[in-house]
């Protein structure tokens, strides 16, 4: 990976938090990985987030979470400051088999792609490389 990224994992499942974090850590040697357990915590985290080093932020967003699910999170996310969101790349990361979820993720302009759990590192890397070319 040529470019360095910051990662934010939004997932209510503790085991999946550990799995995703370890996969990123071991494969990509990323150090800046933040984990929150709900959509609301994710929003709070983003509001306090100041991107001083100008590293792009990658959000790995789970779909099914109590109280605020991934799509509800995106509804609030689109109202955030454009200056902030322009440096954020969102992937959904879920074990869903629901066709409607796949459709919703595909049509949402903020979601680059719906990734399947467990996280496939190679796929993520090639997607991020494409993104860096665009930037």
């Amino acid at each position, binding site marked *: 990976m040529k470019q360095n990224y910051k990662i934010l994992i939004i997932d*209510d499942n503790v085991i999946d938090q550990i799995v995703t974090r370890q996969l990123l850590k*071991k494969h990509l040697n990323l150090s800046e990985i933040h984990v929150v357990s709900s959509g609301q915590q994710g929003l709070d985290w983003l509001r306090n987030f100041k991107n001083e080093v100008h590293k792009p932020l990658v959000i790995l967003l789970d779909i099914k979470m*109590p109280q605020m699910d991934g799509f509800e999170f995106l509804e609030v996310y689109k109202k955030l400051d454009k200056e902030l969101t322009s440096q954020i790349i969102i992937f959904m990361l879920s*074990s869903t*088999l629901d066709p409607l979820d796949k459709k919703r993720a595909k049509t949402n302009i903020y979601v680059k792609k719906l990734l399947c*759990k467990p996280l496939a590192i190679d796929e993520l890397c090639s997607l991020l490389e494409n993104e860096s070319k665009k930037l």
Partner: protein
Amino acid sequence: MLKKKNDTTTQFHTVFIPLAIVVLSCSLLILVNLLTIKILYSSRAYVNGESHYSKAQKESTRHLTTYLFTKEKKHWLAYNTEIKVPMGDRAARIALLNNRSTTEVKKGLSAGRNDKEDLDTMIWLFENFKNVPFFNKAIIKWGEADASIEKLVVLANEIHQKITKNQINLAEKQIILSQINSIATKISISQSQFSDTLGDGTRTIKNYLLIINIVLTLIIIGSVSTYYNILLNKLKRLTKETRQKNKKLIIANKELDKFVYSASHDLRAPISSLQGLIEVMKLEDDITECKKYLSLMHESLDKQDKYIRDIIDYSRNTRKQTNITEVNLSTLINEAISQHQFAKDSDKIKITTDLEVEKMKSDELKLKIIINNFLSNALKYADPKKDNQFFSIKSYRNENCCYIEFKDNGIGIELEYQDKIFEMFFVTNNNNNGTGLGLYIVKEAVENLQGKITVLSQVNIGTTFTVIIPEQYEAKL
């Protein structure tokens, strides 16, 4: 089933009876009207006949009088022609009274210048109504007129003889004339009485007919509106039933949608976690870390296991009819406890039972589901910070209901979630390993037993669930 069948039979009767009354009343109305028309038509034939009778009698009297004074043969012949009319009617009346053959009756009536087409109906009226007061009286008047006609014929024959022999003088002629006039007057009176009687009779019949028509029409209207009402009520009830069924169906459909959605997420979630853990473990060399991952794998498998069990409970709970038997509560509770003895930290929680009600008539499977869920919840949401962790089950009887109380001193439920915990697939942030089905299944099971469930909980203090089930008696077995 049997009761339902009886219901349909009664319903069939209530619909069938007014319909039968309508059909019967209509037929009766048609029959009565036909009969009346026939009576009135026949009466009219008699009135017609009477007018021929009267006209011919008057003509014959006139010819006889003229013959008496002029002695002209043609008047005698004319008299003879005319007198045949009342004489024909007389012959017909006598034939009818003596039950002679129809041919003889018809011959007489034809001579009476009655229309050929009227003959049958005249005979019918006479035969069927000769004992009915109005017609009987008319026949008597007819007879009286005929008797006078006989007298006239006798007198006419005398006149004819005397004229032929030329033995008559003017004084005699005057006497005979007054005799003829007196007979004619008598006949006239009888004739008009005959007509009046027939007229009165037909008027009475007409009045009766009107009353019968009104009564039958009212019966028809009444029955039709009853029938209509019954149908309308039935329709209303059916519409209501359909609406209720539709509502239930919509709820069932929504639940199914929810179920499919949740299954497509939760069914695979523990497996994908497991796959992830395997991936991570491949990269890990540290044995302590590996052991940590193994315990996470265990947790994941437990979750999958619980999910499968919940789904099976759910389908068994909703599909299966309630099956009431004598259930031993303490056996069920002991079974549940032994099933949970290997659960994490279960040895730290002191489980106590206090059963006033030990045996009850209820559905064993549903009670088992209820007890198992409360027990596993108590273990899952125990508060490890407390030293004296406990879970107690109490049962007691009150007002024909059996109360089962499940009490723990676990982490408790926040007030805002207490209404929602029984919803399908409801989970909270605390509820990482929950499927969102357990308490939903419990609620369904309790409702199936026509019972109620209450929750009393405070965060950090504990939770008490109370299940209230009406006691089932042998009658329902």
